């Protein structure tokens, strides 16, 4: 026997289940209850930066859209600063830009959508700068523990090539699963980012 360290153990995860919408996005469950709701619009008209739409689907191992997925994103502002006290960079914060959003896949199509701004670069480990990216967290019925991944931007090829996280992915062919393609549609810049839970094109998920 030895001394006891006395750490607690993290509470175990359980699936968010099919009715996650009730708790986190009740309007999608079909009712209205809170005065303030969290949503998929991160940036208002006055938010600085390049305004973009991110959309895509979550696909299961058979290629079928996961129509009950819940997605959250977390990102730096256009200057490359997170709105959080641990980010002490000497860069401006943007009033009203929390950098976080939440939405569900549409029950009919499986499509999700966020309206935000393109984030700036933030420092990574060991003094290396990370390419602009948006952090994703996905839960759903059948997902036992939330999945973490990142979306990078196809038009940042140079920054992506130097990114310390993308560089860690051993199989170059898998890096593409994290890179969203850019298109212009209806006067908006749209990045398409599908998340593949399983199979040949399985998205790279992180143990953070």
């Amino acid at each position, binding site marked *: 026997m030895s001394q006891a360290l006395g750490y*607690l153990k993290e509470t175990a*995860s359980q699936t968010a289940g099919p*009715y996650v919408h009730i708790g986190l996005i009740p309007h999608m469950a079909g009712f209205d209850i809170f005065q303030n709701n969290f949503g998929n619009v991160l940036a208002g008209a006055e938010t600085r930066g390049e305004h973009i739409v991110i959309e895509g689907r979550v696909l299961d*191992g058979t290629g079928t859209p996961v129509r009950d997925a819940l997605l959250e994103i977390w990102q730096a502002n256009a200057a490359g600063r997170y709105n959080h006290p641990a980010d002490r960079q000497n860069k401006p914060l943007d009033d009203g830009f929390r950098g976080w959003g939440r939405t569900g896949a549409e029950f009919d199509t499986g499509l999700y959508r966020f309206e935000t701004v393109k984030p700036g670069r933030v420092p990574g480990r060991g003094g290396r700068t990370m390419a602009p990216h948006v952090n994703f967290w996905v839960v759903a*019925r059948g997902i*036992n523990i939330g999945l973490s991944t990142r979306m990078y931007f196809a038009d940042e090829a140079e920054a992506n090539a130097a990114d310390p996280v993308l560089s860690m992915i051993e199989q170059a062919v898998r890096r593409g699963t994290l890179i969203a393609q850019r298109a212009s549609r209806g006067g908006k810049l749209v990045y398409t980012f599908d998340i593949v839970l399983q199979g040949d094109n399985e998205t790279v*998920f992180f143990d*953070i």
Partner: protein
Amino acid sequence: MNVQRQYFRREGDAQPEPFIPARNPLEFFQRDRDMHPPAYAPIYKTSVSRSPRKALLSLDQSLSEITGPVFGHDDIGILDNDLVKNYAKTGDPVGERIIVHGQVLDECRRPVPHTLVEFWQANAAGRYRHKKDTYLAPIDPNFGGCGRALTDENGYYYFRTVKPGPYPWRNYVNSWRPAHIHFSLFGSGLAQRLITQMYFEGDPLIKICPIVHTIPDEEAINRLIAPLDINAAVPHDCLAYRFDIVLRGRRSTLFENRLEGN
């Protein structure tokens, strides 16, 4: 104290720095995945086609993982933690009135203050107010089934609700969920994000629930079962259950380099 006297330095060397055991004092402890359900847990059939099969890529945490959204009292409303009243139309919802309360701690036993806790559940009959729930048990016109709270400076939260009922679901032909309340937690950084479920002491359905038993560790299951807390009951009004939640610890406990309020 004259540091230079302790060891040899050449002219022009940088000033010596004290040894600090961790260079990234805000990062979270590695997640112990033996305590969590694996992605692929065939007893829970839906997980079979929704589980990643390739290894997760272990990531040294950067600013992207040690930060996360910050919420405040402006984000929530005064009735958000009272499920007995927050959807009441013609009266209170039917069911056993309960308080659920507890403390959000990290693995170093430190309270997690001012963090958002969200919860949702079925009504007393086991029916969710959700357009995809078709169970024959009735919707309660006075019960929405969701709420949220911010922990106080000591990490405490509480809410009032009615005890949810068990309900059938399609896994095996005769599968029933034990009564449970879903919880969503943020902590202070993205790496602490967690969704879980709370169960009730004494529920015989716990031991036969496939979703519960996706968790491979019996002790980890027991930590999801809230005991009756008779001392926190309000006499002649409602019972109480206690549910403490533990999020990942972080290295700032060891050092001086602390966040405000953390």
